[in-house]
């Protein structure tokens, strides 16, 4: 019996320590953070767009976390200042991401404010960025002979529309673009209370 108890308590204690460190302490440290004055809650349409972003797994290729200069040239690439916990208070689920098969999108709205560009780029990325390996999302668009009332016609580069037809954005595509346009965190970061981003210790950064 002794061994079973050791096994159960050992398993519980070791997992407990890990949970305290990685779940509970961050919870305590972050829970009272106030949103910056310039960060607006998402509108309903932006939230729908965010749902499209989630449904189609954009997070698997795009991060939303520009890092400090000491970690890489994120700022030099125009992706924005290093993000802080307060930037994410309205985010559920978080979409920090772990891959950069494509660029960071934390400030894509500031970098690329044009809805036309976004719609066309979603329809066929390679018409805008030669060599891009981003998937095309034709299922977010419809082809029609002529525009009906309320249709948003996508202005594609020549040769991209099927002959004799125009390309119309679906509501999902419009929502997604609204969300992307809202990705603008160019306001100054508040001085973090606890210096959440520490530069690596001496000599560790390359």
């Amino acid at each position, binding site marked *: 019996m002794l061994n*079973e108890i*050791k*096994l159960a308590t*050992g*398993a519980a*204690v070791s*997992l407990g*320590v*890990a*949970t305290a*460190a*990685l*779940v509970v*302490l*961050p*919870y305590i*440290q*972050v829970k009272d953070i106030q949103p910056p004055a310039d960060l607006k809650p998402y509108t309903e349409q932006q939230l729908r767009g965010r749902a499209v972003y*989630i*449904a*189609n*797994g*954009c*997070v*698997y*290729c795009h991060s939303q*976390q520009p890092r400090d200069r000491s*970690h*890489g040239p994120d700022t*030099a*690439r125009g992706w924005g200042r290093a*993000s802080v*916990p307060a930037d*994410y*208070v309205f*985010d*559920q*689920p*978080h*979409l*920090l991401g*772990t*891959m950069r*098969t494509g*660029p960071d999108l934390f400030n894509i709205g500031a970098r690329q404010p044009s809805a036309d560009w976004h719609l066309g780029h979603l329809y066929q990325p390679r018409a805008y960025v030669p*060599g*891009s*390996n981003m*998937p*095309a*999302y*034709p*299922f977010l668009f419809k082809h029609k002979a002529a525009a009906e009332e309320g249709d948003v016609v996508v202005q594609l580069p020549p040769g991209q529309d099927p002959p004799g037809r125009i390309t119309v954005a679906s509501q999902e595509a419009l929502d997604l673009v609204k969300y992307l346009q809202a990705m603008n965190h160019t306001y100054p970061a508040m001085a973090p209370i*606890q*210096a*959440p*981003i520490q530069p*690596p210790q001496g000599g*560790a950064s*390359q």
Partner: protein
Amino acid sequence: MDSAVISLLGAFTLSILGLFAFIWSLRQGLLVENPRGASVIFAQGEIGQVDDPALTASDQARLQASAAPTDGHAASHTGRSMDAREMQDRVDSDQSSAFPVFMFIMFACFWLVLGSAAGWVASVKLHEPDWLTQYAWLSFGRIRTLHLNAVIYGWSSNACLAVIVWVLPRLLRTRLVGAPWVMLGGSLLNAGISAGLGAIAMGWSDGMEFLEIPWQIDLLIFAGFALIVLPVLYTLMNKRVDHLYVSVWYFVASLLWITLLFLVANLPGVHTGVQQATTNWWYGHNALGLWFTPVSVGTIYYFLPKVIGRPVRSYNLSLLGFWTLAFFYGQVGGHHLIGGPVPGWLTTLSIVQSVMMVIPVIAFSINQAGTLKGQMHLARYSPTLRFMMFGGLMYVASSIEGSLEALRTVNAVTHFTHFTVAHAHLGMYAFVSMVLFGAVYFMMPRVLNWEWPHPWLISLHFWLSATGIGIYVVGLSIGGWLQGLAMLDATRPFIESVNLTMPYLKSRSIGGALMTLGHGVFVIHVLMMALRFGPRRTTAALFKFPLQVSHAQ
């Protein structure tokens, strides 16, 4: 700042203290070797007997003939006095678990085929982005996620459960208590996986890596795990051995861990923002570190000595490995967020613990090398051993790579690149899946009382998988590293980091195709066996072979 340092030191000290407390509590004979503990997997007189049910009788005899006499246990080779009652116990154990194990293996095979096909499509899409774009469920973001969930929860978890449910009763010399509950749990689990994959395909996702399955469906999966844990604990209570073999520690602890991890990580409405990110990776890495890794290591600790008929070299080292893994692995998840907007102490803690993971890995590799000393050549004869040895080596490789990858200097290059993907497959495939394949090859003949119809298919599977994952990991690691260097250089446009990965992404598709092909071979073979194809039925459920070997030289 101060509180951060204190919490960092606190968690670290607590792990070290906890570790020493547990080592101390196991102190009896820690410095003296413990051959009795290591030998509990053998019946009396069984040491020195090789055992691989995946082999035909004549191949078994060849395996036995080429096994060097086990030092110190040479007597047993001639003594044929295996305890008949212990043998009968083992037959009873196997019978009690046969149905649930068969069910888990069948589900695992199904998800393996589906998951690898999805993975291959996702791989091709990264270099052929205009292929199959008309349907939402086939778009990269969804098919990649279908792949991950099908292989993580479908294939690997089902196969892990099969191993646990099959080996535990053997190690405890008892019957599996509550087999119908285990099967009910397995059904709920797989119903949850099916529903979850359907939801992801339709675009209904919780949106976090490893936690995509909507929490409403997670209830099914959690209920499934809980229904499996309870009979397992009950079986543990009914044990008829004095000593808990090290694999029991690994199996039972990991089953408790995954159930709790899964519950906490999926709690709806609790986690937000940055804290949700740390929880996400606490779960994501612990699914690997506290579920798949301990189960696979426990599997090696049972099957490898069993096949070569020689107890684990250093039993105490294996226990040390268990407790260091338990205390260090749980806290490494933060290394997925290095440089991110999370508290600095958290990533530092995770980096430190990632490096500490070297200890259990070294303990394991010394042990594996010692146990196999002079017997490596047996892998030529025994498919189970070949898979296990390959998996064991890759465990060492992937863990060392993981520890290095967590260092800030290395992480600066590899973070956000395909290098991480290659590393994940080195761990989940070259290590975990290969070990699980080996275990299935050993278990199935005992579960079904039927021989593998075509042993050459086992070799074919091994070489397809081993070659495939070799191409996969080598190519993608190089590509990922170059990608990382390109991204770090602000003078090179971003698109350069995309362009230069193309040849490596293509090599990954080739490797992935070989692996998928191997899985086809594996699953067809399993089905042939289940449908009673093939030449012969095994003569006896267990151990026809030791009786024959006395006539072989």
